[in-house]
C-alpha cells in the first residue's frame, strides 16, 4: 500500500506527515500496484548472525532484493520472489510486514 494525497494526488511510500507537493495532511491508502524491477541484486550478509532491535538473534541468509518502479511512479525497495530478473514486470504484495515483488502484472 502507498499513501495518496487527497488534495494533489502525490504518492508517498513510506508515508509522510505533510505532502511535498501541496503541504496537505490528508492521505488515503492505495494499492502499490504493478511495476518493473529496474535493478536487482543479491545482498550477502555483512555478518553471519544479526541481532534484531527486539534483541532476538537471527541467522543471515543472502536475499534477492530489487528496486521496483511502480506504474504510479513510486520506487519501492522490495524482496524478490525467485525467478524475477532485472527488467521483469512484477506485482507488489505485503508479506512478513515488507514489500515483496511477485511475478505478474
Amino acid at each position, binding site marked *: 500500500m502507498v499513501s495518496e494525497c487527497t488534495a494533489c494526488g502525490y504518492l508517498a511510500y513510506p508515508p509522510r506527515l505533510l505532502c511535498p507537493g501541496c503541504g496537505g495532511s490528508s492521505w488515503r491508502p492505495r494499492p502499490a500496484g504493478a511495476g518493473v524491477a529496474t535493478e536487482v*541484486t543479491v545482498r550477502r550478509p555483512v555478518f553471519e548472525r544479526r541481532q534484531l*532491535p527486539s534483541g532476538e538473534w537471527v541467522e543471515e541468509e543472502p*536475499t534477492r*532484493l530489487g528496486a521496483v518502479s511502480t506504474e504510479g511512479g513510486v520506487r519501492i*525497495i522490495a524482496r524478490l520472489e525467485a525467478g524475477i530478473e532485472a527488467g521483469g514486470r512484477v506485482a507488489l504484495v505485503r508479506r512478513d510486514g515488507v514489500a515483496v515483488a511477485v511475478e505478474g502484472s
Partner: protein
Amino acid sequence: MSAGSEARIVGAAEATYERHPAPERETETFIAEAVVAALADAGIEHGEVDGYGVASFSLAPDHAIDLTWKLGLTVNWLMEDTNGGASGVNMLQHAVRAIEAGDAETIVLSSGDRLDKRDFHLMTDSYNKAVRDYLARLPLSGPNALFAFITERYGAAHGLEREDFACVPIAQRAWATMNPGAAYREPLTLEEYLDSVPVAPPLGRYDCVPIVSGGDAIVVTSAERAARLGRPSVGVRAIRALYNPDHQDGNGIETGFSTIRDDLWAAAGVRPEDVGAAFVYDDYPVMVLVQLADLGLIPDGDVKRYLHRTLLEGRWPVNTSGGQLSAGQAGAAGGMHGLVEAIRQLLGRAGERQVEGLELALATGYGMVLYSHGACHNAAVLERHS
C-alpha cells in the same frame, strides 16, 4: 558565506581507527582522543575552547552537553549534529558563522563512533523509522543493496563496468599505502578487486567501506587568534548545502550537488579547475563519481576517461587518506574524515602523501539514507592561508 570568512581552521586530527576495539574503548573514548590530538595539532590550550560540537550515532543516552562535561569544557556555543556523513561540513558551516558573529572564538568540532557487530546491526536496522519499519525486515542490514542499485543505474547511464568503478578503490588504496592511520594499506590490484567476495552485486568487498571505530576532530578559531599562532591556517571560502531535495523520489544519481554547484563556486570566487585536491564522501565508489561530476570536477562529463586517465594514471588527488574505502568508516566520524584530511593537506601536514603546493581544496559531505538514497548534501571550498 562570502569568500574569505573571518574564521580559520587551525588543527585537525583523528583518533586511530580500530577494526576490533577493546571492550573498554567506548565512543566517548575515541572522541576524547581526537579532541586532545586536534588541540595539540592546533597549538591551542584546552582552556581556550569556548565552543563545542559533536556528531555521533552511539552517544545515547549522552548528548553534547554530557560530552562537554566529561571533556572538562565550559562553552558559549554548543551543537549536536545527527547528519552522519554530512555532519562535518554542516558543523563547520555553523561554527564559522558563530565565530564571525562573535558567539564563540575557538570551537572544537568532533565526531566518533564505536561500532562492533551488534552496534552495527542495531544502528543500520534502526537508522530511522522508515528503515526500521519498511526495509530492515527485508532484510536489508545497511545500505549496500541500495547502493548496488545506484551503482547499476549510474553504470548504465555512463557505460561503466566493474573494471571502471575499480579505479576509485585502487587509486584511493594507492594513497592509503602512505597513510599510517588507514585500516587497509596494502596496494589493491584489479584482479583482487574483480575476484573479491560479492557483497551485493555489482558491489564487491572493495566497494564497501570497512566498519571501524574511531574519532575525528578539528579546531576552528577567529582569524585574529589564528594569526597569533604564527602558522598556516585554513580558511573557508564558501559552504553550500541542500537537504532533502527530491523527497527520495529521485534516482540517487542526480543529486543535490548539481543544484548547489554554481552557487558554491560563485560564492567561493573560484572555479572547479582551481582546486588542487578533492575530499569527497566515499561510502561507495559511485558516490565519489556522482559528487565529482555534479560539482563540476569532471567538466566534459566523460566519467570513464576521468576514472582511468585522471584518477588512476594521473593520480589526481582525491581522498588522499585512502578515503573511508581504505581508512575505514567510523560511523559519524566518516562525515569528518575527508575534512580532516583536507585540512592536513592544506596545512602541509600530510607526510609522505603530501600534495605539493596545495592552496585550494574541496571537501564534501553526503549521506543519511532516508529510504533509497542519501538526503544530505554539503560542500566546502577551503583555502590555505600561509
